[in-house]
């Protein structure tokens, strides 16, 4: 693996941690549900790095969490988080980043904003919730439908995060196009 890829994987893992440690965004539409910016880290990693590196960045996050660093939203971390009802979401970040990155590469001929939005929504919401809901159903013995109900309150916040991710991708594409690795010419 090239040095640059290595550093960027570490960087996006760090951005993910920073998003979780940051004070919560003020989102009036969510009706008091605590919303963290963290799942945006998975969208960003996929959209910016592409499928493989995005997924590796998320795997690095999981590894560091398992090692005991409290880098998840609310200062959580350690092996304990893999036993919470949200463990499905935690593993889902890897798949979310992979799918978002893959879509970004598939849609490379399209406009950056539109394809980043599609990639974030499909990867960061559809795929992530599929993992999250199945994980919650497994951990809590609820049926899939009931587990889905318990997760739905987060969807409005996540849609906003997808839009923000797309805006960031577009800005980077304008200001520093070579940094959008998911669009870099494959060699």
């Amino acid at each position: 693996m090239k040095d640059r890829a290595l550093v960027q994987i570490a960087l996006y893992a760090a951005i993910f941690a920073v998003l979780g440690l940051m004070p919560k965004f003020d989102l009036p539409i969510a009706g008091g549900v605590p919303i963290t910016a963290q799942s945006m880290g998975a969208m960003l990693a996929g959209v910016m790095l592409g499928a493989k590196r995005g997924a590796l960045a998320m795997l690095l996050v999981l590894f560091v969490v398992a090692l005991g660093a409290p880098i998840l939203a609310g200062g959580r971390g350690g092996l304990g988080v893999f036993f919470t009802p949200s463990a499905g979401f935690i593993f889902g970040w890897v798949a979310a980043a992979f799918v978002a990155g893959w879509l970004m590469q598939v849609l490379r001929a399209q406009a950056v904003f539109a394809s980043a939005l599609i990639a974030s929504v499909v990867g960061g919401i559809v795929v992530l919730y599929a993992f999250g809901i199945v994980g919650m159903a497994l951990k809590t013995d609820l049926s899939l439908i009931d587990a889905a109900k318990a997760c739905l309150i987060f969807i409005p916040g996540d849609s906003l995060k997808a839009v923000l991710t797309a805006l960031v991708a577009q800005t980077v594409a304008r200001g520093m196009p070579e940094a959008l690795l998911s669009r870099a010419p494959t060699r």
Partner: protein
Amino acid sequence: MISLYLAERTWAHAVPAGWKLIALALISLLVTPFDSVPLMGGLLAVVFSLYVSLGRAALRQVALLRPMLPLLVILVGLHWWTGSLEAGIAMVLRLLAMVLLANAVTMTTRMDDMMDAVEPILRPLALFGLSPRALALMVAMMLRFVPLLFALWEALNESWRARTGKRGGWRLLAPFCIQTLRLSHHTAEALTARGGAPRGKRR
């Protein structure tokens, strides 16, 4: 950076990291099929007495569960509504016991010991050209990036506030990303200039 690790040594610190991890994995597999409230209550009581034996600093970490409470209430409610309250309570007791037990391993194991303990599992990664040393470098880089990125965000936030009097919030995201990417390019160049990341035996 703050860590969940307990600085004060307890008896559990002396147990090798690998054993603790194996014990945790075994217990998590063992308790999954059971749904009885007394059994799960007993498990939680055992885990709690483990915390008592680790001392006051460990007990204080139980407060980390607080953010989970609203979700647990919703989950028990759903269980009650769709079937049996008893199953819901057993589920919550099991969740609490396992989260606390896993956290106890984290509390009493240093990060580098944990890394050494999982190294044998990571060895197959060398087949994909990623040496465990490169992984250790990535972990170190990531942990170093976190405070650096915070400082960068704060700097952007302050300059935004100087100009507008308000907090920057999401508006800072795009400049923040460009600045961090520039930072990562410099880091990568510096790394290459120093001989590059360790590559394991494959090269």
